[in-house]
């Protein structure tokens, strides 16, 4: 089934952004943009989330936090890097404490451009990520099936 596409739950984390993208992510939830139309909810809890929305680049302190949150999300999951900072570090690329985009740490599926990214493009990015989410779900299911076959006595060697 394709329930995943109809009910993606977000988790937003501000890695080291200037707030511009963050408030635009929030603005998506509010009456003008209202992403709940598409079933999108901001959960605030990695264990419930499907889509990890990261803004801002990686620095020393949040490195482990991002990885930790990513690991606590159940499969299938996608990462959307919102804003130019999350993609490459953006204007802060050369700052003393920034080591670049999110993709150094975790696999990013969709990059949303902009400084700050506009709500329209953020929504677009998330909708794009849903296709990938669906693909990942199918892969996950196949993996599980293979594992199952591997375990059953007639299913070949382990």
């Amino acid at each position, binding site marked *: 089934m394709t329930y995943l596409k109809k009910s993606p739950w977000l988790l937003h984390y501000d890695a080291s952004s200037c707030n511009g993208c963050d408030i635009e992510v929030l603005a998506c939830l509010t009456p003008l943009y209202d992403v709940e139309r598409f079933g999108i909810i901001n959960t605030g809890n990695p264990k419930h989330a499907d889509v990890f929305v990261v803004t801002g680049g990686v620095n*020393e*302190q949040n490195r482990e936090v991002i990885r930790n949150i990513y690991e606590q999300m159940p499969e299938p999951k996608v990462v959307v890097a919102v804003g130019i900072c999350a993609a490459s570090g953006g204007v802060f690329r*050369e700052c*003393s*404490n920034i080591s670049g985009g999110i993709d150094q740490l975790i696999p990013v599926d969709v990059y949303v451009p902009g400084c700050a990214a506009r709500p329209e493009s953020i929504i677009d990015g998330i909708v794009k990520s849903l296709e990938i989410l669906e693909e990942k779900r199918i892969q996950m299911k196949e993996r599980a099936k293979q594992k199952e076959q591997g375990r059953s006595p007639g299913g070949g060697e382990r």
Partner: protein
Amino acid sequence: MKPENQELRVIDTAHLIGEVEDYRNKGYRLVNMSCTRAGEEFEISYSFELDLRFENIRIIIPLDADISSISGIYWGAFIYENEMHDLFGVHVRGMNIDFKGNLIRTTVPYSFRNPSFRGEGPCQDR
């Protein structure tokens, strides 16, 4: 626009506490503390304000010197002092809340202490 007048006095390190106490007694509030590297020295500025009178005092210390905390006089000063320690490596004695270098963890320790690039020239390549 009416530009405001700003006073800046460079004082001796030894007089710091006395001066700050003076400001406190006069009812000034602490606006800011900031550190700047100037050559082989740190300039540390303390800014105070009372009824739109904005005054600064400055001490100049060698890179490895330590200064005494004013957090006993202005309780909130610890946040500046910890920050100064984490970014510049200035040692501050006697802070009321000492984060021991954990207020801001940086990739390079004391990242503001040693400017990596300065002056004219291409800046896009790291």
